[in-house]
């Protein structure tokens, strides 16, 4: 793994919740990770492994414990407010409703995304120019959304909202794209559509991506790098060649070897068809 | 479509109700006079005033149901209704508006500006101070008059000198936020200055402050007088307790307070004030220029109430001459 091209550097990041109480849990335990430009990293792990916590720290929802650092393109973004992370990270959530605003129209949602990270003034939010931009961005999705700019987002289906959320997360090109189990709640057909969309957009925009998934098969099939987390630590980190010919079973064994215990999470194994 | 249908139904209901209303009020032969009575809130004093007004008008020949129609509206302390009620009376073109309490009097006067509807207020302490009339006797520009329940502080001070002959210092408590109280306190100072008596003042913000304020007057004064201050009157018992414990004679300004333990006071019976107002309304209805030439009056019927037991508890005796003329004597 080469160190030049390092877009995102996570240095010795830990996160402890409910510190000092009976419920204290170490969600992240001294994690370090270098993400290179144009990496497409799939992140897997059992529940509670720390995947979402890691994403939250990159997105700035909360800061890491003292001593940890998050650096993007040379900028130390460890302790700046969540809203200031917008320029650096775009995120698609598991719930399609979290990534879009139901009471506003498609056009207005995209207008919000167009202004990602930029100061907002008193110009009209929607303009002919922005409308054109919105249409051009929505048309390739093949969902007909470009003709429904004035539709209230709340009336769209889950898949449509998620596709919209994907577009909104990548518009105005943030440095890194965070996909947080973003197809988990969609039906298989829609999930497939959104997944392919994700792949297309990532390739087109040359986005650096972190994709959290529960599905080991997907983790193997997509991306150029695979990370497996367990109990707040990264236990497996393999590149393209290493994961090229692996099967899910191989992955399970690799996990057991690395973490020193039997792999006991049914939900991941059951995803294997 | 369902939505349009719903709107139509609601609008029709509104229209029907609005149009039906004139037929529900004032059924029967057309009344000769129509009066709107605006009251601020349900309260024994205000209710008694209203009853007095109605009876007073009846005495002068204006009987409700006969040749008089009364539209009584009570805003129950809802300020937004106060203006609505005044506006309603103006739109209904009543022959006169009678208003009981300050906010609704102000609203009525404001709403009738430019019309020829006279406003007669009742139980307002300081009508000139609130701008209702330019002057009590002479108000050619205002079609407004009424009866005030302002007490004559001078008379109260004289009462004190009769019961506490060597009084040199009189203490008082009041809420500086109540305009009437500030006014009355200045009158107290006036009356006492004329007699060479010193006044010691204590202010309170809430009735909870009364105890401490009363405490502060102990050893400083020979007697305590309190005006018609709502805040102090709410915390009266605390004040009376201090006075009894320290033998300081206490003189309130209204009869209910005598019953609670004050020594003596000249007071108004609000029903009497209402009667007086009723007579005045009759004069307004008969005058060519409404209320313009009718001077504001002070409540005429002032009665003396005394409490002999309270006097004894506070170390003084009420002279027989006063007991003879007292309208009400409490002995507990």
């Amino acid at each position: 793994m080469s160190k030049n091209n390092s877009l995102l550097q996570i240095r010795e990041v830990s996160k402890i919740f409910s510190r000092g109480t009976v419920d204290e849990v170490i969600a992240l335990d001294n994690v370090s990770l270098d993400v290179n430009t144009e990496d497409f990293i799939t992140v897997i792990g059992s529940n509670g492994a720390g995947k979402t916590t890691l994403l939250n720290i990159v997105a700035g929802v909360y800061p890491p414990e003292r001593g940890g650092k998050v650096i993007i393109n040379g900028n130390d973004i460890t302790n700046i407010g969540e809203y200031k992370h917008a320029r650096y990270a775009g995120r698609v959530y598991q719930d399609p409703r979290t990534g879009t605003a139901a009471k506003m129209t498609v056009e207005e949602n995209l207008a919000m995304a167009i202004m990602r990270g930029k100061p907002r003034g008193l110009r009209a939010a929607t303009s002919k120019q922005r409308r054109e931009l919105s249409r051009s961005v929505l048309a390739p999705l093949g969902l007909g959304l470009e003709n429904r700019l004035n539709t209230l987002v709340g009336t769209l289906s889950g898949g449509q909202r998620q596709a919209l959320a994907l577009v909104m997360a990548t518009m105005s090109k943030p440095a890194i794209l965070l996909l947080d189990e973003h197809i988990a709640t969609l039906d298989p057909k829609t999930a497939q559509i959104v997944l392919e969309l994700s792949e297309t957009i990532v390739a087109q925009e040359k986005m650096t991506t972190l994709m959290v998934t529960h599905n080991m098969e997907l983790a193997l099939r997509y991306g150029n790098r695979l990370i497996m987390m367990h109990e707040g630590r990264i236990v497996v980190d393999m590149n393209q060649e290493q994961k090229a010919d692996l099967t899910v079973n191989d992955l399970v064994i690799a996990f057991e070897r690395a973490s020193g215990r039997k792999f006991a999470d049914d939900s991941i194994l059951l995803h294997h068809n | 479509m369902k939505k349009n249908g719903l709107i139509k139904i609601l609008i029709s209901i509104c229209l029907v109700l609005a149009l039906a209303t004139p037929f529900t009020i004032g059924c029967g032969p057309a009344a000769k006079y129509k009066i709107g009575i605006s009251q601020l809130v349900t309260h024994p004093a205000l209710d008694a005033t209203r009853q007095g007004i109605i009876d007073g008008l009846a005495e002068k020949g204006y009987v409700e149901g006969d040749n008089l129609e009364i539209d009584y509206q009570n805003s129950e302390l809802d300020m937004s209704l106060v203006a609505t009620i005044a506006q309603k009376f103006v739109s209904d073109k009543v022959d006169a508006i009678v208003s009981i309490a300050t906010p609704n009097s102000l609203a009525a006067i404001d709403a009738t500006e430019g019309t020829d509807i006279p406003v007669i207020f009742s139980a307002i302490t300081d009508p000139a101070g609130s701008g209702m009339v330019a002057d009590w006797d002479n108000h050619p520009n205002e079609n407004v008059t009424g009866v005030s329940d302002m007490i004559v502080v001078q008379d109260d001070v004289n009462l004190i000198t009769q019961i506490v002959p060597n009084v040199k210092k009189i203490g008082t408590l009041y809420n500086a936020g109540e305009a009437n109280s500030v006014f009355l306190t200045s009158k107290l100072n006036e009356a006492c200055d004329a007699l060479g008596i010193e006044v010691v003042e204590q202010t309170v913000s809430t009735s909870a402050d009364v105890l401490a304020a009363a405490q502060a007057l102990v050893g400083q004064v020979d007697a305590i007088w309190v005006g018609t201050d709502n805040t102090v009157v709410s915390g009266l018992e605390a004040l009376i307790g201090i006075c009894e414990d320290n033998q300081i004679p206490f003189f309130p300004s209204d009869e209910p307070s005598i019953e609670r333990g004050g020594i003596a006071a000249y007071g108004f019976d609000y029903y009497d004030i209402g009667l007086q107002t009723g007579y005045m309304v009759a004069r307004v209805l008969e005058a060519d220029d409404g209320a313009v030439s009718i001077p504001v009056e002070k409540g005429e019927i002032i009665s003396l109430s005394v409490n002999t037991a309270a006097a004894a508890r506070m170390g003084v005796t009420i002279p027989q001459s006063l007991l003879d003329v007292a309208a009400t004597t409490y002995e507990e």
Partner: protein
Amino acid sequence: MDFFTSLMSTSVYEGLVYGFVAIGVYFTFRVLSFPDLTVDGSFPLGGAVAAVLIINGSDPWLATLAALAVGICAGLGTSLLNTKLRINALLAGILMMVALYSINLMIMGRSLIPLLREVTIFDQVAQVLGMRADINLSIIVTVVLSVIVLFVLNWFLHTEIGLALRATGDNEQMVRGLGVNTDMTTILGVSLSNGLVSLSGALVAQNQGFSDVGMGIGMIVMGLASVIIGEGIFRPRKITTILLAVVGGTFAYRLFVGIALRLGLPPTNLKLITAVLVIIALAIPYIQKKLRHEWVPPAVRM
């Protein structure tokens, strides 16, 4: 003026002047999802500030503007309590409302300031137009002011900042992820809202002839009732029509009040009637859906 016209005139005037309160309430409760109870305190604040300035010789228009500015400060107080001290929104509003009661008394120096002998904005306009300062004049003034305010608000809500404000109430998490400082948008929205409410208080005080410290009691209920009735009757979808519907709802509410008064209903029952009206307006959509077999229970009990 015949009976029907007089009922309508009063309701139109009241619908417009209290409409500002309803718009302010709509802004916080619906657009920002911020349940702001400051209203009961900021309404009399506007009346107090305007009254004190007017009796001290100030130009009534300046006094009214000052009331607007001070109202914005009140909203600032509430929103700062919420964003900087992390005090729950409902509690922040209540605390501010309680504090304002004392502040209003301090500003006025007493519990009631009469404005009968003062020149108000209504008097000035009456003079300019050569009209009497009656209900029709009041309507003219409030119509003009309402149109101005509605235009400005509508334009603002379609700007970039305005959009961010609307989005904050709709989906705060998403909005933060897109780079909006939601603390700022909350402060902006709550401040503006209370500014409008204070403006209403200043207008009402000047029109009715006095400012009273108890003027604001029940304003939040009136505002909410107006918003809910407006939404129930007009069912608006876009932001522009929503603003109009809210003012329409205020008109409808005051119309019912006027009718109730004329029917001789005691005002103590008015609060009950208000509650019933709001219940009806809230229940209509649910009942309609049930009749059409379209009702789906929500995942979480609301």
